[in-house]
């Protein structure tokens, strides 16, 4: 029987705890560390799950690493502190899966470029872009793999309760990182991202609109097939990812609208924007772990 790869989670908040619960189900990843900066509810919960914990931030992991090493570290803190976390973690030889918008390592949108990331020199830090990026870039790519896209724009509408202070303090980071990944990973010549926060009660499920401007007249049949195929791929790790309507085609504009309902592991179901981040992060670690096992590289 294969042993599971071990992982640490930095950030015992809602995202880190949701990720922990997803890890509990994983066949490939076992969460063994939860890293925080104080003895919070999230740290206590992780301890109840039997994880090793640190309340000294990533330094606690560094100090206890030889006793309890990990292969992967998920950073669910903020872009402001990620760089230092990453430097310390990669020095230990662990791979950093970055859930902040810091974007030090290459962008990873699993159904779009995880295979190509795995086939090249393994990176010691991969970045999961943003929640809006995870929800929309698969759709941009579903269009751009069929025909050239000169411009893609996404509008992510999220429930106020699902947007934490990290995102709010630096909302430009969301806009910039997502825009950049729309072009670099989504395959559009130019990208733009917009985020709208709605405080309605009960909270609304994450909703995203993806507008692509194609260079040639849109080929409706091919686009629909490609989009449907991509929706099924995302549903492989986020079952609540659904297309709202058939794509709207108007001149050279292709508009796709999706709703992202989360699994409701720890985060509420409406927070599909957060669920898709934790699910994509875990999927990335799982695929990397499987590859390492196949290649027999030391873990």
């Amino acid at each position: 029987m294969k042993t599971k790869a071990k992982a640490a989670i930095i950030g015992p908040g809602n995202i880190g705890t949701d990720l922990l619960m997803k890890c509990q189900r994983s066949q490939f990843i076992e969460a063994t560390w939860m890293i925080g900066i104080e003895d919070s509810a999230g740290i206590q919960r992780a301890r109840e799950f039997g994880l090793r914990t640190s309340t000294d931030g990533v330094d606690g992991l560094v100090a206890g690493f030889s006793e309890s090493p990990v292969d992967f570290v998920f950073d669910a803190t903020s872009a402001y502190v990620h760089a230092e976390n990453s430097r310390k973690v990669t020095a230990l030889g662990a791979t950093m899966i970055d859930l902040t918008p810091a974007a030090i390592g290459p962008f990873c949108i699993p159904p779009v470029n995880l295979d190509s990331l795995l086939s090249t020199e393994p990176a010691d830090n991969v970045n999961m872009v943003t929640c809006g990026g995870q929800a929309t870039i698969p759709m941009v790519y579903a269009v751009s793999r069929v025909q050239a896209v000169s411009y893609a724009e996404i509008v992510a509408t999220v429930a106020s309760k699902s947007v934490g202070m990290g995102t709010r303090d630096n909302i430009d980071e969301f806009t910039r990182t997502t825009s950049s990944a729309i072009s670099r990973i989504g395959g559009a010549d130019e990208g733009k991202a917009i985020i709208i926060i709605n405080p309605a009660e009960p909270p609304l499920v994450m909703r995203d609109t993806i507008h692509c401007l194609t260079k040639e007249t849109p080929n409706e049949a091919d686009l629909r097939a490609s989009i449907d195929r991509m929706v099924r791929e995302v549903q492989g790790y986020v079952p609540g990812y659904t297309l709202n309507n058939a794509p709207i085609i108007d001149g050279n504009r292709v508009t796709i609208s999706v709703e992202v309902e989360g699994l409701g592991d720890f985060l509420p179901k409406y927070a599909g924007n957060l669920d898709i981040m934790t699910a994509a992060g875990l999927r990335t670690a799982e695929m990397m772990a499987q590859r390492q096992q196949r290649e027999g590289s030391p873990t």
Partner: protein
Amino acid sequence: MNLQGRSVTLHDMCLRDGMHPKQHQITVEQMVDIAGALDEAGVPLIEVTHGDGLGGASVNYGFPHASDETYLRAVVDCVKQSAISALLLPGIGTVDHLRMAADCGVKTIRVATHCTEANVSRQHIALSRELGLDTVGFLMMAHMVSAEDVLEQARLMESYGANCIYCTDSAGYMLPQDVTDRVTLLRRELNSDTEIGFHGHHNLAMGVANSLAAIAAGADRIDGSAAGLGAGAGNTPLEAMAAVLDRMGAITGVDIFKLADAAEEHVLPIMDEPVRLSRDALVLGYAGAYSSFLLFAKRAQAKYGVPSHEILLEMARRRTVGGQEDLIEEIAIEMASKAS
């Protein structure tokens, strides 16, 4: 109501909010012409931006005739006494746009958020203040929450560095008492040197009355638009506002007749259709939907054959906020499929 001797700063919106009914197609020449006429009339502040603020150029909201930078440089160059302001909605525009606007010579930056989401504006307000600009926190759709909630959000913006806070009636839903409640509390609780502003829409024809209520409750700045050119039924008609304030003995520094000339001879001729209190605009104000949804609903009506005012009612029912234009086409499709 005694406004005798009160000093009020009038802020014109026709080259920013007026971009909505113009589908962002005002030309640079038209902007320069109108700004010149407003400057000549002594309007102290003129806002110039894409209707959805800096960086609003998009498929979702519409691509403008020219870039924000082109508009701003041209207008800043042409005015002699007016200062130019720009709007920024965090989530759409970024600090990069803000720096660009400052570099163009903009003197006032207005950072706009939904009335419950002020804490996304910290980095923009702080930078604007750091650049030495007149910095306004602009709380949109302020009818959707209580006066106490507006105050709580205003305090956040004040703490980030805003020197002026706006109570913004984006849907044109408020009645004078709603304005009085909110502005009174802001005036009483914010720092005494923080200015208060009110931005109205004329969807229930309450633009002037609501603005008077705001001034009586302590507001220092009032938004309006020459010839009313703005989203929905337009903004508070600025020439009427100036005339009313003059009759009441308040001081605006604006030449009423020159402002009326600007409205009549410079703004009116560029309208694609008259900005009026249409059925759609009435629904915006009556139900409380964001004013710039209007043209999107009309386009959806033309494409999907469902009544635009029904779409707008549904947008209000779903408690949508500014910027959710992308939901309009989807609602139209849903309504059309139910009808068939």
